[in-house]
């Protein structure tokens, strides 16, 4: 190989403490080096031209630039050599600035080190091979998993951009938690007024296909080209036919079905539409409570349905969709406060969770928007809110802050005052976390204008005394124990990852943290991307989030998808692993360790299986390479030979 070496002075940045001339002349003595020089600013236009000129003039087949960090200018020089007709991977850099000239003043030692680094780069370059990216077509269909506000936003943004969107929601309706909320902070606008139109849009856009009451069965493929199997759960109602008239619900004799939408505060019928504005507005039977489906005689709904939509024989079905990108927006669940024995472990009917209170406040809720307490339907006079229940609490394994509860407590306390002007609200809090725009002002308003009594301290115990609840807490600012007798206690139960988040992550091959929240590629700079190309995150599935952030993330994820879909093809990174089928012993270890599921079995003729890397999925980490017993799988551009060549040069 004919190699050229260019040693950069970088003004005095390098030449100040490194004898670049000597480095270049030493380089000439290395095997295969046919040309070496030093140059003032190699990365400048003239510098790059100098390289291109030398490539032509000396018939160079590989180039080493000894200059700054490759993290800085590798792409620049790669482009430069490419312009001169070399493959961009026939290029290496020696970092003699950040790693040499800037960290020591001993000119002799620096020069020696620079020579070593150039020698290592040359040694590696001898083992370099031209690598070529390939182009793959992009299927411009998007899958959105989860139909909460984040997923809806992402779906609508992409649909508006003209893309086909498939949305999968495991509940019978879309809207997520926000559909259950009464009003929303910090503006106190009605949740269904702002979410409702968006939900309707989802159902009306022609390029959105909605699968409600459905879950992801499996996912295969890779960026630009995923195949998704979707399990449509049996609803026992043919949704093509159902008009949402509600006759069936009216007549259904099974009146004590679980009312999930109202968080257990009311009772539903076995066949129902969870709420009047539900999208899709279709009935479904809760098999657990249906008489007919439990072997008893009924079938009333089938008889009354004007369009014969009820189908007791319905089974789950699987549909397959092809998409090019996936946005995960599966949201969150709420901490189950029965872990708190000292708060009654869920045994006291008048100790409820924040989301239950949200239903109580809601005009479409179980009490028609009148604040009543669940035990006896009385209007409460004293209401206590307790923050950080199942948040910031290491003893229940939830050390993180849920981020939304301080704000929704303030909101609920304000709304309580609006509903019941004679009532008193008390809030036990540890800290108030309200860092959004107009948020702290909102909390201040609760205290200053609405007279909500904030008490700084945690609550030790809640127990009944007579028909009221005693809340025994502390006011740490005063250093005293305090006791409040309350008619109703609202626990701000914390945010936890959505049920089944882990299993879904494994299907998607994305990672999640110890609490089940999905991990972004980079917490600051790639907040909606995952480490699996083509899979993006939006909303509370990534961590606790309020509506504004969830929506912002929905749009951010949508824009990532749009920039991906702006291309008809994508270029692959050729620095991927490659299997030598002759030496592969088919042990499968690489398949086990690959964090991205990039390796699969390939069946050769005669039924022999060999490992095969999917270049589009491989991210180039090299874990497989280090694992493979016969070293049959090699990471291109960082092969064993290349790495050892560098070390070898040093040992010499």
């Amino acid at each position, binding site marked *: 190989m004919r190699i050229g070496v260019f040693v950069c002075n970088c003004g005095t940045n390098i030449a100040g403490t490194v004898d670049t001339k000597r480095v270049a002349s030493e380089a000439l003595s290395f095997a295969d080096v046919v040309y070496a020089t030093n140059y003032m600013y190699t990365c400048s236009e003239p510098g790059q031209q100098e390289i291109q000129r030398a490539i032509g003039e000396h018939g160079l087949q590989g180039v080493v630039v000894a200059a700054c*960090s*490759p*993290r*800085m200018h590798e792409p620049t020089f790669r482009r430069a050599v490419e312009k001169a007709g070399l493959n961009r991977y026939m290029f290496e850099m020696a*970092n003699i*600035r*950040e*790693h*040499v000239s*800037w*960290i*020591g*003043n*001993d000119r002799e*030692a*620096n020069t*020696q*080190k620079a020579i*070593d*680094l150039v020698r*290592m780069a040359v040694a590696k370059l001898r*083992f370099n091979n031209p690598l070529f990216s390939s182009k793959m077509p992009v299927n411009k269909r998007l899958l959105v998993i989860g139909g909460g506000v984040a997923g809806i936003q992402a779906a609508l943004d992409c649909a508006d951009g003209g893309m086909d969107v498939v949305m999968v929601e495991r509940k019978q309706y879309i809207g997520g938690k926000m559909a259950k909320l009464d009003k929303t902070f910090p503006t106190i606008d009605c949740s269904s007024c702002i979410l409702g139109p968006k939900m309707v849009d989802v159902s009306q856009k022609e390029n959105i296909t909605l699968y409600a009451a459905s879950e992801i069965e499996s996912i295969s493929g890779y960026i630009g080209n995923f195949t998704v199997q979707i399990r449509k759960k049996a609803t026992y109602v043919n949704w093509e036919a159902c008009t949402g008239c509600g006759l069936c619900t009216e007549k259904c004799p099974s009146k004590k079905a679980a009312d999930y939408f109202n968080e257990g505060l009311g009772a539903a019928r076995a066949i129902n539409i969870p709420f009047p504005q539900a999208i899709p507005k279709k009935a479904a039977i809760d098999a657990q409570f249906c008489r007919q489906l439990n072997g008893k005689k009924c079938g009333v709904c089938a008889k009354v349905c004007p369009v014969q939509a009820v189908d007791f024989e319905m089974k789950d079905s699987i549909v397959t969709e092809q998409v090019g990108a996936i946005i995960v927006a599966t949201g969150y669940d709420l901490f189950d406060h029965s872990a708190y024995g000292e708060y009654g472990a869920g045994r006291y009917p008048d100790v409820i969770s924040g989301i239950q209170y949200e239903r109580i406040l809601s005009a479409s809720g179980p009490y028609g928007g009148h604040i009543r307490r669940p035990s006896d339907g009385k209007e409460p006079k004293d209401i206590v809110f307790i923050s950080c229940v199942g948040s910031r609490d290491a003893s229940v394994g939830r050390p993180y802050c849920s981020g939304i509860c301080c704000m929704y407590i303030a909101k609920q306390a304000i709304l309580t005052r609006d509903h019941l002007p004679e009532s008193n609200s008390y809030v036990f809090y540890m800290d108030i976390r309200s860092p959004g725009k107009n948020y702290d002002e909102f909390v201040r308003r609760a205290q200053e204008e609405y007279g909500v009594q904030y008490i700084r301290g945690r609550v030790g115990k809640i127990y009944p005394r007579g028909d009221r609840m005693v809340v025994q807490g502390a006011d740490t600012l005063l250093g005293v124990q305090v006791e409040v007798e309350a008619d109703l206690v609202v626990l701000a139960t914390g945010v936890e990852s959505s049920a089944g988040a882990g299993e879904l992550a494994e299907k998607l091959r994305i*990672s999640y*943290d110890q609490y089940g929240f999905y*991990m972004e590629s980079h917490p600051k700079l790639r907040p909606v991307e995952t*480490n699996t190309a083509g899979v993006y995150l939006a909303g509370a599935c990534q961590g606790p989030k309020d509506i504004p952030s969830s929506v912002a993330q929905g749009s951010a994820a949508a824009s990532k998808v749009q920039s991906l879909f702006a291309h008809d093809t994508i270029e692959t990174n050729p*620095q991927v692993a490659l299997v030598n089928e002759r030496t592969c012993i088919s042990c499968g270890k690489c398949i086990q*360790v690959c*964090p*991205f599921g990039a390796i699969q079995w390939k069946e050769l003729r005669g039924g022999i299986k060999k490992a095969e890397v999917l270049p589009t999925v491989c*991210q*180039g*980490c*090299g*874990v497989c*390479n*280090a*694992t493979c017993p*016969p*070293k049959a799988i090699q*990471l291109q551009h*960082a092969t*064993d*030979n290349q*790495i*050892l*060549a*560098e*070390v*070898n040069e*040093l*040992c*010499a």
Partner: protein
Amino acid sequence: MTDSSPRSSAPADQTAANTQGIKIVGFLCNWCSYGGADTAGVCRFKQPTDLRIVRIPCTGRMDPLFVAKSLIYGMDGVLVSGCHPRDCHYAVGNFYARRRMEALKLFLPFMGIDTRRFRYTWVSASEGQQWQKVVTEFSEEIHRLGPNPGVGPRSGENSKISNGLR
């Protein structure tokens, strides 16, 4: 730093004389530690010059044999540095690395190699200062230990590691 090894009590001048050609190789992951070393440079944090850095994509790429061979064939110290746990660009590469490097540590004495010659650390791209500290401490340690008596021939043709690992 304190060190109880007999070598550390060697007279200073002898140490200096012996350590002229100390060679340390560092395997740094591209995303965190290589960036950290760059940051240290950009901040002009002065460091000993014995270290030569090999850039690898991820510490998960580290084959323990890279370390073993380096030490057998005459490197005086080997430093492996990657992203902090949970910060791995490739999600879990550094967990694999940690497991392998821990195993390697147990294994080195059987090859007659002082485990102090090998170190595995985590440095992120922003931790220039931390990198300076790691390099300085490790270089000092290797200087105290002096040249690696090694197990293989130290110089000449034979010292070349055969390319490929078998």
